[in-house]
């Protein structure tokens, strides 16, 4: 270190402004924001990476990017009303600003997915960070082999991205299966746990699998994948943790000796299956 000299390094905690272009209410709890950097710069990221999103006076929360980097003019995030910060953000209007840091973390390794059959298993809000990958695959469909998507929620009211769902149901780019744990009077689709969907189609052993959802879901899905014989280094999981700093310092996201914010949030299952704190 040089004597008495303040380094000119950037202050990594300073966010930058992003303007809200569009807000969609995706369910009673979630809002879907389309944003653009206030300085009009492009957001460069890979699917699976996340942002620290903040509102001054309320605080900062980690949020996965929910759109594909192939959609260049804007980027999406989905905010679920949970605590102080998300409640405040979900009261904003179009034209208001949010403050962001990032993108951070390791996303889905596209080079490990290209030219293979792909299965995405998304449970509940787990569809948000995977939507980035789903959109990417849809946009660059020719780079991948078959593409299957499983989406499960607790009940129909929990389904997100309703417009996307409509499109996925009839698209020939994706083999889409959905289920709810509990139906309501309007639901005509399948009822049951997400693992039931494995009965509806056959998944090849060379498939690359992406799982994102509540911790409880992982174990059951992995159990099904093991039956098919999918290697654990071909299974990628997106883990949710309390990522407070996103830069490997604050300690909050640690899973044994790994940091979700630096080493993840996307991990190859083979890299973490020996970590007791992972699931």
């Amino acid at each position, binding site marked *: *270190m*040089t004597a008495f000299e303040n380094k000119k390094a950037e*202050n990594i*905690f300073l966010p930058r402004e992003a303007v809200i272009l569009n807000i969609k209410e995706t369910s009673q*709890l979630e809002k879907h924001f389309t944003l653009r950097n206030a300085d009009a710069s492009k957001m460069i990221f890979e699917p699976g990476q996340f942002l620290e999103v903040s509102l001054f006076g309320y605080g900062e929360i980690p949020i996965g990017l929910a759109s594909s980097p192939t959609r260049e003019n804007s980027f999406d995030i989905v905010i679920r009303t*949970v605590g102080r910060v998300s409640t405040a953000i979900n009261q904003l209007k179009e034209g208001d600003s949010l403050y962001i840091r990032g993108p951070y973390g390791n996303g889905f390794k596209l080079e490990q997915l290209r030219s293979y059959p792909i299965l995405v298993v998304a449970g509940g809000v787990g569809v948000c960070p995977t939507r980035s990958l789903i959109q990417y695959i849809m946009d660059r469909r020719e780079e991948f082999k078959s593409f299957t998507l499983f989406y499960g929620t607790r009940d129909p009211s929990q389904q997100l991205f309703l417009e996307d769902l409509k499109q996925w149901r009839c698209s020939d780019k994706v083999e889409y299966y959905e289920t709810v744990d509990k139906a309501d009077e309007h639901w005509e689709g399948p009822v049951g746990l997400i693992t039931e969907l494995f009965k509806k189609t056959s998944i090849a052993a060379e498939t690359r699998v992406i799982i994102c959802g509540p911790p409880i879901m992982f174990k059951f899905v992995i159990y099904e994948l093991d039956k098919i014989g999918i290697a654990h280094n071909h299974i990628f999981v997106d883990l949710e943790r309390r990522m*407070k700093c996103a830069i490997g*310092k*604050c300690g909050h996201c640690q899973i044994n000796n790994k940091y979700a914010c*630096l080493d993840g949030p996307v991990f190859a299952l083979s890299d973490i299956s020996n970590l007791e704190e992972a699931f």
Partner: protein
Amino acid sequence: MNTYFIKESDFNNFIDNMLLQLPVIAPVLSSESVESFFSFEFLKNHDELRLDYDITILPPKKAFFPPRQVIIEFSHGKFHGTVNAKKQVLLGVHPYDIKAIDQTDFLFTENYEDINYTAYRNATTLVCSNIQTISKRAFWGSISHDVPARGHDAFLTKLTDLNEAEEEGYLFEVFNEKGHELLSFGQFLLATELQIQQAKSINESIKDKCPQQLNYSQDEMANTICRSFNNTALWDELAQDCFSCGSCNTTCPTCYCFNVEDSWNIDQQSGQRTRYWDSCMTEDFAKISSADGQSENFRKTTAARMRHRIMRKMVYLNDKLGTQACVGCGRCSIACTADIADPVNIIKRIMEEAANDSL
């Protein structure tokens, strides 16, 4: 750089002259009842300085990583960082704490440099001093003892046990420009070879005087602790009386976890984003909440948290740091009301259990 000597009779002047020019943070007596308690504070005059302290309640890292630190100020939709580091001297830091600072220097710089730490660290002249009194729970003689203390700019050793003919005073080793700048504040003489040797033997001989000892190599400890990860009964036993207060983290010189929180000023238009020390031993540290009041705590039990703390001190960071993330200061041992935080007892218990298992 050179090695100097300053006479006892000139020492107070040195401190006072320095105080005229620079803020100095140094050990002072903070309370005295049955025992004396010391803390690092901004020094007002030479009288307060207590280089004979045994241990301070909080570690000196607070000079650049304060318990609460405003990192951003905001007002009416505008915001700015608050880094504004001024030259200061941190004096009287014992070698084990120097090692801890060396660790946080690395950790706040790797991957992403955090100038909210490094700016203050770089603006600080760090003066190590020899240990004159040994704390009752110290075990720095047998942990992280293979790595040298480094990163300090100067080293002050009080020369003791001298012959009558020899002058009382301090040896002052200067390692770089920052250390060198302090020479202008005092009457320094070039040290004699004898004085240099005396200081060396003072600092050498203290190494095996700790009241507590661990008789294992770093690898032995790391491997065995790592292998004990799934011994749930053992961790339950070790954490049994823990009430998750987090004092063992707060007092630790190598702990650097933090949380960040926003707050408003009374005008409700302006406010600040503040980071503050956090503790992995507290209940909510690894908890995330989801909608409708549901939550997931990735380290639910005191045992899981105790295990994480010990893994972090003894295993996880070793490769990165080249040493354990415990420097044997014994502050956690003193701070824990239940007296279960002492790494010496914990490690001995783990090693003993592992030895029994392999019988």
